[in-house]
């Protein structure tokens, strides 16, 4: 599929306090036309700053950082970028009713006829189930309704892109999940490029066509939700994504005949060919990572080791089992009910084709 470029961020650098704090260090992103990209990272990682630079609410240090549809907009004021921003703290204009809030951008733009504005407002209201609320003031709306109005205000602009800065963070859990689905559905319908900032990995995985994981002002990895989950670029991405989190063990690599073996005080594991070809013999200080769902509890096998079940947490359709071996905690997730009981000694096996190796700098090998 040929990607038509929607928004490009090129070598974005943004520093604060006279250059002493760098919020974005050389950020590069490419959001295709119609794509929904999620910027994911812990708080303070520069994701919101990146978004604000795209919107024009912050001014990047470099002059050619932000491109929209092939046009350099880095130094344009926000209003001339044809973007729609949805804020975290649900910023409706308190003195205007819902209708006027939704049409605010169009009213300002003065290029639409009154009928056209009315039509677009009605359409957005229908899409967001706001028809009944058009004459209310913002203080008469619930949190979810207010955020829908904010979305409506963005939609009627028919912008080049939606920029959403944790728009669901202030909503309660049930509503957040509902709105998440709603946003994705609307995005699919309008096919407007969207950048969605969140620190919630579940939100990121469910929403994003692609996810860009950021940390300390640097993009760690850009990829589809499956790539991010199953092929993390480094330990940070591996641990940040996934709940319950990935298991990590220090290990080294040795050979046994033609095979390579991962060795630690806990295990002695032959490595499958496909993974082994990237590894070098005698490597020390490696980290082996394996997601809990690939840690199996079962019969004694050649590569299994003994562990004790310390705690069982039912997660509904799955069950999380905490195991302990030689002072290390291991998390295992099984489908359905736990096949073991707390306190029991069990045999643990890793599904070796699902194992990651990270080098001493944290990069995945």
């Amino acid at each position, binding site marked *: 599929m040929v990607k038509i470029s929607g928004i490009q961020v090129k070598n974005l650098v943004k520093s604060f306090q006279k250059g002493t704090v760098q919020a974005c260090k050389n950020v590069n992103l490419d959001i295709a036309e119609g794509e929904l990209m999620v910027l994911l990272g812990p708080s303070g990682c520069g994701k919101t700053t990146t978004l604000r630079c795209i*919107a*024009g*609410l912050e001014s990047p240090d470099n002059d050619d950082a932000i491109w929209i549809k092939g046009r350099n907009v880095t130094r344009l*004021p*926000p*209003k001339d970028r044809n*973007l*729609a*921003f949805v*804020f*975290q*703290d649900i*910023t409706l*204009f*308190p*003195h205007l009713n819902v209708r006027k809030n939704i049409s*605010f*951008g169009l009213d*300002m*733009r003065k290029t639409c006829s009154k009928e056209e504005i009315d039509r677009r407002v009605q359409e957005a209201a229908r899409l967001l189930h706001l028809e009944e609320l058009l004459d209310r003031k913002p203080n008469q709306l619930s949190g979810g309704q207010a955020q829908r109005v904010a979305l409506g*205000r963005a939609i009627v*602009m028919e912008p080049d892109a939606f920029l959403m800065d944790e728009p669901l963070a202030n909503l309660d859990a049930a509503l957040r999940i509902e709105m998440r689905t709603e946003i994705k559905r609307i995005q699919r319908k309008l096919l407007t490029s969207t950048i969605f900032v969140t620190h919630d990995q579940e939100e990121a995985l469910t929403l994003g066509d692609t996810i860009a994981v950021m940390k300390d002002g640097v993009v760690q990895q850009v990829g589809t939700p499956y790539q991010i989950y199953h092929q993390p670029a480094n330990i940070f991405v591996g641990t940040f994504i996934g709940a319950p989190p990935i298991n990590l063990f220090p290990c080294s690599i040795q050979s046994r005949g033609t095979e390579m073996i991962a060795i630690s005080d806990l295990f002695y594991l032959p490595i499958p060919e496909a993974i082994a070809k990237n590894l070098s013999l005698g490597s020390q200080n490696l980290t082996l990572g394996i997601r809990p769902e690939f840690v199996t509890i079962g019969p004694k096998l050649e590569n299994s080791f003994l562990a004790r079940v310390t705690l069982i947490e039912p997660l509904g359709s799955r069950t999380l089992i905490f195991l302990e071996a030689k002072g290390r905690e291991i998390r295992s997730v099984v489908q359905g009910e736990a096949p073991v009981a707390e306190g029991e000694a069990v045999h643990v096996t890793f599904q070796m084709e699902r194992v990651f190796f990270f080098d001493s700098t944290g990069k995945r090998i």
Partner: protein
Amino acid sequence: MAQVTDRSSFVHKTLAYAGLIFVLSLILIPYSYIALTAFKPPGEVFEVEWLPREWSLEAWRYTFKTVEFQKYIFNSFIAGLGAAILSIFIAVPGAYIFGRKQLRGKEIFFYIITVALLFPYVLLIVPITITWIRIGLYDTLPGLWIAYQIFIIPFALWILRGFFAELPPSLEECAMVYGCTQFQAFYRVMLPLARPVIVSLLFMTFLIGWSDFLFSNMLTTGEGPRTASVILYVTAVGGERVEWEVLMVMTLMAGIPPVLLYILAQKQLMKTFAVRRR
């Protein structure tokens, strides 16, 4: 609400009402005495009777015809109105900057202005009078308007800054993303939101100009835009006899317009000073 039945809450309510009635009478008794005295003939003023034996409009006639007090009431009105409008034009943009914009040395500037609030402005009256004479503002309405700003502005900035600072920071950003320039964001979003506070300030600064005695007394002459409170004073101290009934008429005339204004502005005033609830 549940029905109040038990004894302690009955006592509580009774005491509360007693307190209210006491405070209310502290205010209402003198006022009604003023109103009644205004209708007494001069001979009856010192009698202890509450109601005038003979209702008289003599004092009113004197106030309107001889003193032409309405002229000075009008002066007071213009002095107050001008001071109020001028202060809004200065204080609203100022407070907006102090409340919401990054500015080097902003805090220090603001503290200096706040200190001006503490300065006893009586001390300024002589230098101001001399300066006003020199630059031609003496005995003019604009002279009064500007003089009042000296203590109105710090006060207005102080109230408005708090208001602007409390509004969510993303409001203007939002306006700017949706098509506003910086100024439009201020004008179309911040200003309408500040309306109740601005109305309250208009009311309070109007009152300052309306009831001011000191500046009006020093900066105007009998031929110029002298305000009502000065005339009230002159009536009280001039002449062989204090004409209480006339004073009472003037007091009523000077006292009622602010009350009417308060009733008009009440809704906005409540919005400004009531505890904010979300």
